[in-house]
């Protein structure tokens, strides 16, 4: 079975590498909590797959889609941010989900396109919500004569999305403009 190479673990190791070394654990995998979690899940998956192979009934519909969706969820589970919870228990959101919301907000400013979003938790506020630092890499449209206004708009939209769409508070927001694009790209 081949696992898509885009599924990197927070420690930097690819999920595919963990899959290939499922029966031969190296030193990093012994110490790394992300690799150990991924390996346990993949072992459970291998056992379940074997059961399906042995099962005389047809395999469930959309089997590959469900497995890959589960793999993506497993990777996302690695880095979670606290959200305020009124009831006993907790509410948390993955950093990747937050990155999607912030990237979408930046794109809606116009004249820029968001590329990478790095979200880093630095604390928790009095409501129990995570406080985060965000680094957003942008590419800007060539010929945009109101660059400063555009960046101010990005800052405004991203900050608003963090609180109104997610429920976290931004401690800092760094915008890095690293490239330009022409209309039509």
């Amino acid at each position, binding site marked *: 079975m081949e696992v898509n190479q885009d599924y990197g673990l927070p420690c930097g190791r690819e999920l595919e590498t963990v899959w290939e070394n499922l029966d031969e654990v190296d030193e990093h995998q012994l110490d790394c909590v992300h690799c150990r979690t991924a390996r*346990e*899940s*993949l072992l*459970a*998956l291998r*056992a*379940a797959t074997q*059961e*399906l192979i042995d*099962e005389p*009934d047809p395999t*469930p519909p959309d089997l590959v889609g*469900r*497995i890959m*969706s*589960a*793999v*993506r*969820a*497993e990777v*996302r*589970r690695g880095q*979670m941010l606290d*959200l*305020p*919870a*009124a*009831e*006993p*228990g*907790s*509410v*948390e*959101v*993955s950093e*990747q*989900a*937050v990155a*999607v*919301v912030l990237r*979408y907000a930046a794109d809606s400013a116009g004249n820029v396109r968001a590329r990478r979003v790095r979200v880093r938790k630095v604390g928790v506020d009095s409501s129990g*919500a995570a406080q985060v630092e965000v680094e957003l890499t942008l590419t800007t449209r060539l010929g945009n004569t109101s660059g400063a206004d555009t960046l101010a708009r990005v800052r405004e939209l991203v900050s608003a999305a963090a609180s*109104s*769409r*997610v*429920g976290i508070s931004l401690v800092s927001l760094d915008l890095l403009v690293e490239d330009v694009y022409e209309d039509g790209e």
Partner: protein
Amino acid sequence: MTAEYVIAAPVIASVAARAAAETAGVVRLEPGLRGLATAWTRAARQRWKGLEPAPADGVRVRAHEDSLTVEVDVVISGADQAAAVGRAVQLAVFREVLAQTGRSVDAVRVSILDIEVGRQ
């Protein structure tokens, strides 16, 4: 005569799964690899008996001594605030598990694994 009622974990998980899935803002529950494996095993056992199990994908029930914790993994839409949807899922699970099983849950942990922006 004394009578003791035991509510099995898959029952609580299925009730919690439906309550979470029907909460406004929730797009679907996300089982993860371990949940997928558990669901397949449970489905295979039920099929031997000719039954179709109620889905409980994305929900784990943890019982420790007298304490009962329900963990729910969800994907939500970007139309609502994630924190508000998470709290609504907590409330729905507390309420429905108590109403349908008579068992009170001590804690509900909601993990939002993905947000689908652009979906209303």
